[in-house]
């Protein structure tokens, strides 16, 4: 019998089964393919956040949570509004933003530059990768007194602390990004006789850009953390010093108001980087 013949007999058998003539159980094939594919769900983040706030509010009002452990969210909000109305917000925010901007820009630009050099030159890599690895795990806050000796008690030591803190994660992210640029694209550039500088500028840097950008998310968050540390170095104004002052007076409303501002700063940075990604990385599949 031909292959086609066998096939047709088989299909008759399955037809029989379909109609249940042979008495077998007919059931759908169980689906096993779902899950493992997280997708964005709108509104859940806000719901969780609001639920936590409401819980804290009710807890503090009923006395279930004492005022010593957690301030009342509405009181924190009132403190924020007050801070805004008295102009204290800007008085503290502007010096902080300045420190963040100068320190962060310094650390990130040196970090990206050195990271690219490590990615491109064997000698720089051999010399600096162990050094960066040694510097990375040092808690920069531990170096606070040293920074005061080195750079004085003024703004400079604060800039340098933030710069140093953002530098190490930026270097690591950048040279990793350069290492991961598709080698076949670089070969292609060479095969078309592109100059070294053209290859770096048109192939290596744009190829490394997405990973550098996601490294920046980490670096900037670290910069915000270090801002508070830097302002421990005797700053009169600044979100960090505002928080420290509130902490030492055990003024929880003020403390939480300050923390809220830092957290909002983090959210804004995240949002901006997300925007940049969407604007410049729309070529990704």
């Amino acid at each position, binding site marked *: 019998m031909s292959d086609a013949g066998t096939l047709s007999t088989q299909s008759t058998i399955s037809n029989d089964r379909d109609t249940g003539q042979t008495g077998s159980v007919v059931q759908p094939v169980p689906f096993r393919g779902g899950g493992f594919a997280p997708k964005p769900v709108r509104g859940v983040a806000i719901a969780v956040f609001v639920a936590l706030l409401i819980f804290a509010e009710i807890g503090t009002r009923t006395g279930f949570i004492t005022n010593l452990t957690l301030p009342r969210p509405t009181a924190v909000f009132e403190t924020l509004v007050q801070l805004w109305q008295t102009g204290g917000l800007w008085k503290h925010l502007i010096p902080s933003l300045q420190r963040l901007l100068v320190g962060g820009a310094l650390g990130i630009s040196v970090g990206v530059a050195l990271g690219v050099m490590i990615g491109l030159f064997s000698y720089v890599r051999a010399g600096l990768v162990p050094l960066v690895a040694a510097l990375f795990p040092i808690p920069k806050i531990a170096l606070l007194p040293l920074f005061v000796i080195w750079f004085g008690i003024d703004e400079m030591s604060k800039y340098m602390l933030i710069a140093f803190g953002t530098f190490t994660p930026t270097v690591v992210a950048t040279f990793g990004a350069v290492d991961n640029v598709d080698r*076949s694209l670089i070969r292609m550039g060479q095969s*078309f006789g592109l100059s070294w500088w053209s290859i770096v500028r048109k192939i290596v840097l744009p190829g490394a850009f997405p990973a550098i950008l996601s490294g920046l998310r980490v670096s900037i968050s670290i910069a915000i953390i270090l801002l508070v540390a830097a302002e421990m170095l005797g700053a009169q104004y600044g979100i960090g010093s505002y928080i420290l002052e509130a902490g030492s007076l055990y003024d929880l409303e003020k403390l939480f108001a300050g923390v809220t501002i830092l957290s909002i700063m983090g959210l804004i940075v995240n949002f901006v980087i997300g925007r940049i990604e969407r604007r410049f990385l729309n070529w990704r599949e």
Partner: protein
Amino acid sequence: MDLKLKNINHHYGSVEVIRDLSLDIPRGQIACLIGPSGCGKSTLLRFLGGLERPSSGEILQIGQPPEDCLNPLTYVFQHFALLPWRTVEGNIKLVLEDHGLSRRKMDDIVTNVLERTRLSEFREALPKQLSGGMRQRVAISRALAVRPAVMLMDEPLSALDSQTRELLMDDLIALWTRQPFTSVYVTHNLNEAVRLGHRVVVLSRRPGRIREIVDIDIPLSERHLGDPVLDEKQKQLWELMREEAAAADKELINV
């Protein structure tokens, strides 16, 4: 411009990849290199374009490339090697920008090559928007833009499905018929070799040597799918390769 490989030997560490191989690439023809996997055919192509150096032996170019040629030895890669952040136009301009051409001249070249590969309407598209076949067409038009003396094609159709492959083979034949170019075409697909090759160079398994050179005299434009003469040639090539391929398949890979 002709190319000549002279007594090429090559090792990767202790593994001998190519042994005493000499080959002439005459102008105006497509030479197909076929052989079992690991026989060093892609390595040979990298030697020809100066992307890699053999352990010993010489690669010579005989005669000067034509005056207007911007990049005499130009590759077309298996995985296209297009910059994903540049449009079709940007990808072609990438290879023109370093030559100090005027903006107008570059635009003219882009328009011309896109027309020849029938891509004119995709000028502003990003690679991610294109199918595999279209991406390889872009890569081919990029190669044409620098007016190469020799096109070095490294399994250019291997990443494509067989229907797209047929279409692109027709395109390549049309391009060649309109303006003959010199090409070294590496493939493991015997059908591509007999459709596109004026001569087919069969390499042995590692260490790679030339097993045989088969010339196919039928003009490219007259070679069609299912032509009995071509089928005969393809069978002949397969007979040559069969044992080598089987033996190569059983070798341990330690490169």
